[in-house]
C-alpha cells in the first residue's frame, strides 16, 4: 500500500493520519512531565503565592521527612505483595476458567465485574463492609472468632485490607491475561512437563510466560504500573489513614498538590514516582523484547 507514492506524499499522508493523535497525546503527557520536572526545582505554593528557585531542596527535604520515607516504603510493599498475590490467585483462576464445566461462560463474565466497577465505588463498598460497628465483614469476623475488630483503625490491618481490596479489584484482569496465555499453549506441552515432574511454578515460569505473547506480558506489566498510580482505591477505602499508614506515593502527590497546594513538593515527589515507573517500564521493555524474539 502506498509503495508507489513519492516519499514526500507518503510523509504527508502519514502525518495527516498519525499527527492529530500523536500531537494530542504528547502535548498532554510529555509536556506536563517536563513542566513537572521544572516545577520540582521551585518552591511553588498557590496559597502562599511564592515561586522561587530552590535547587534540589524539594528532593532532599522530602527524603528528610520520615513520613515520606515510610510512604515510599509502603508503596513498594503494597505493589510487591499485591502483584505476588495477583499472579498466584490469577493463575489459579485462569486454570479454573480454562477447565470445562457447566456455566463456564457466565463465570468468565462474572470474573470481569470487579474490573469494570468504578474503583471509587468498590472502595466505598469495602469501607462500609469493614465498618467497625455495622460492617458485614466485621460481623462475620465476630461470628467466627468472637473478637470485635476495627480493621480500618489499626495500621497493620488497614494496610492488609487495602492490599486485599486491591487484589480483589485487579486479580480478574490478571486472570484474563494469564488465561489468554494458557489458551495459546498446546495441552501436550503441559502434560509432558507434568510427567517430567515440573512444579506449578516451574510450568508457569518456563512454559506459560515464554509462550504468552509479548502483548500479554506487557499488558500485565502496564497493569502493575496502573496500580502504583491509582489513588481511587485509597480515596475510597482509607483516605491514607490511620495516620499516613496506607498512603502511597501517588496519594501523597494528590494531597501535596491538590489539598495543600504545595506544587513544588508535589512535583519533586512526582519525579520520584516517575523514576520508579521508569525502572518498571525498563523491565517491561526487556521482557517485551525477549519474548517477542523467543515466541
Amino acid at each position, binding site marked *: 500500500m502506498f509503495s508507489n507514492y513519492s516519499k514526500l506524499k507518503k510523509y504527508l499522508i502519514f502525518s495527516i493520519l498519525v499527527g*492529530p493523535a500523536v500531537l*494530542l497525546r504528547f502535548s*498532554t503527557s510529555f509536556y506536563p512531565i517536563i*513542566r513537572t520536572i521544572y516545577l520540582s526545582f521551585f518552591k511553588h505554593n498557590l496559597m502562599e503565592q511564592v515561586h522561587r528557585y530552590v535547587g534540589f531542596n524539594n528532593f532532599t527535604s522530602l527524603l528528610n521527612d520520615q513520613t515520606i520515607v515510610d510512604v515510599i516504603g509502603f508503596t513498594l510493599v503494597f505493589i510487591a505483595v499485591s502483584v505476588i498475590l495477583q499472579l498466584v490467585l490469577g493463575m489459579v483462576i485462569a486454570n479454573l476458567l480454562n*477447565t470445562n464445566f457447566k456455566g463456564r461462560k457466565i463465570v468468565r463474565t462474572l470474573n470481569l*465485574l470487579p474490573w469494570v466497577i468504578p474503583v471509587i465505588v468498590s472502595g466505598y463498598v469495602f469501607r462500609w463492609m469493614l465498618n467497625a460497628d455495622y460492617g458485614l465483614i466485621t460481623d462475620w469476623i465476630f461470628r467466627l472468632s468472637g473478637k470485635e475488630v476495627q480493621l480500618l483503625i489499626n495500621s497493620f490491618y488497614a494496610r492488609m485490607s487495602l492490599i486485599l481490596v486491591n487484589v480483589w479489584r485487579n486479580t480478574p484482569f490478571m486472570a484474563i491475561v494469564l488465561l489468554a496465555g494458557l489458551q495459546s499453549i498446546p495441552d501436550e506441552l503441559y502434560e509432558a512437563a507434568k510427567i517430567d515432574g515440573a512444579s506449578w511454578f516451574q510450568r508457569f515460569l518456563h512454559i506459560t510466560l515464554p509462550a504468552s505473547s509479548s502483548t500479554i506480558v506487557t499488558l500485565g506489566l502496564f497493569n502493575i504500573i496502573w496500580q502504583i498510580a491509582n489513588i481511587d482505591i485509597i480515596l475510597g477505602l482509607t483516605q491514607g489513614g490511620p495516620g499516613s499508614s496506607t498512603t502511597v506515593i501517588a496519594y501523597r502527590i494528590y494531597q501535596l498538590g491538590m489539598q495543600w497546594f504545595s506544587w513544588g513538593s508535589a512535583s519533586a515527589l512526582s519525579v520520584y514516582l516517575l523514576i520508579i515507573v521508569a525502572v518498571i517500564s525498563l523491565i517491561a521493555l526487556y521482557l517485551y523484547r525477549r519474548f517477542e524474539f523467543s515466541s
Partner: protein
Amino acid sequence: MKSRTVWNKLFLYFGIAIFVFIILVPIYWLFLTALTPRTQLFSVPPNYFPDFTLANFRNLISQVPFVAYLTNSILFSIGAVLLSVILSFLAAYGFARIEVPGSNFLLFALVLTMAIPEIVTVVPLFQVLRNLNMIDTIRGLVMVMGSVLIPFSVWVLVTFVKRVPVEIEEAAIVDGANLPQVLFYIVIPAMKPSLVTVTIINFINAWNNLLYPLVFSSSVSAKTLTVSITEIFQARTPYGRPWELISTLGVTMVVPMVILVFIAQRGIVSGLTSGSLD
C-alpha cells in the same frame, strides 16, 4: 481412577463456588444497602433481610443534582470515546499501512505514554486547562481523558488493521477510490467488531475515571457521578456517613457497566488480549 475424577470435579466446583462468592458479596451488599430503609441500616448485627424500599433513590434525586451529574458523566464518556477512537483509528491505519522511517519508534513512544501516571500530570494540566479557559468544562475533561485513552486504542487497533487484507484496498485505489472512501467503505466495515470493542473498553475507562473530573471541575456544569459520590461521602449524619445514599449512587454507576459486560464479555476479553486471541 473413577473416584479420583469425582474428587477432582468436587474440588473444581468448590473452587469455583468460593471464587464466585468472593466476587459477588461486595456487589450484593452494595445493592442490598441501596434498597435498605435508612432506619434499618445501622444495626448490630447487620440486617441481612431488610424491608426493601426505593426511598433511597428518591432521596438521592432530591438531595443532589443527579440528572445533571448523570448527563455530565454520559457526555464526558461519549466525548472521550469519540475523540480517542476516531483519532486512534486514523493513527493506527497510518502506522499499519505506511512505512516511513521512524514510524516504529513513534508508535513505541506513543504506547509508552500508557505508563505515565495520571497523577503526575494533573498539576501542569491544571495550568494548561486554566490558560485555555477549559477548567470546569466538559470540553476540557474530554480533551485530557481522550488523550489518556489514545495509546491503548492505537496499540490494539494497529493489530486489527494489519489483519485486514491489504489487496482489497489496493484494488480500490487502482479503481480510482480516494483514501477517505477506502477507509469508509472498506476498512471501517471490515474492522467493525474491533472498533466496537475498543469503544466499549474506552467507555468503561472514561465512565470510571475519577481523578480528572475531581481535579478539573468545580461546579455542576462539569462534575460527574464519580465526583458526586465523593461529595456524598463527605456528608455526616447523626449515625455516621449516609451509606444508603452512597450505595444508591454506586448502584446507578455500576448497573450500566454490568449490562455492558454481560452484552460484550467476549469482545472485551479479546480486545484486552488482542495479541493472542482472534
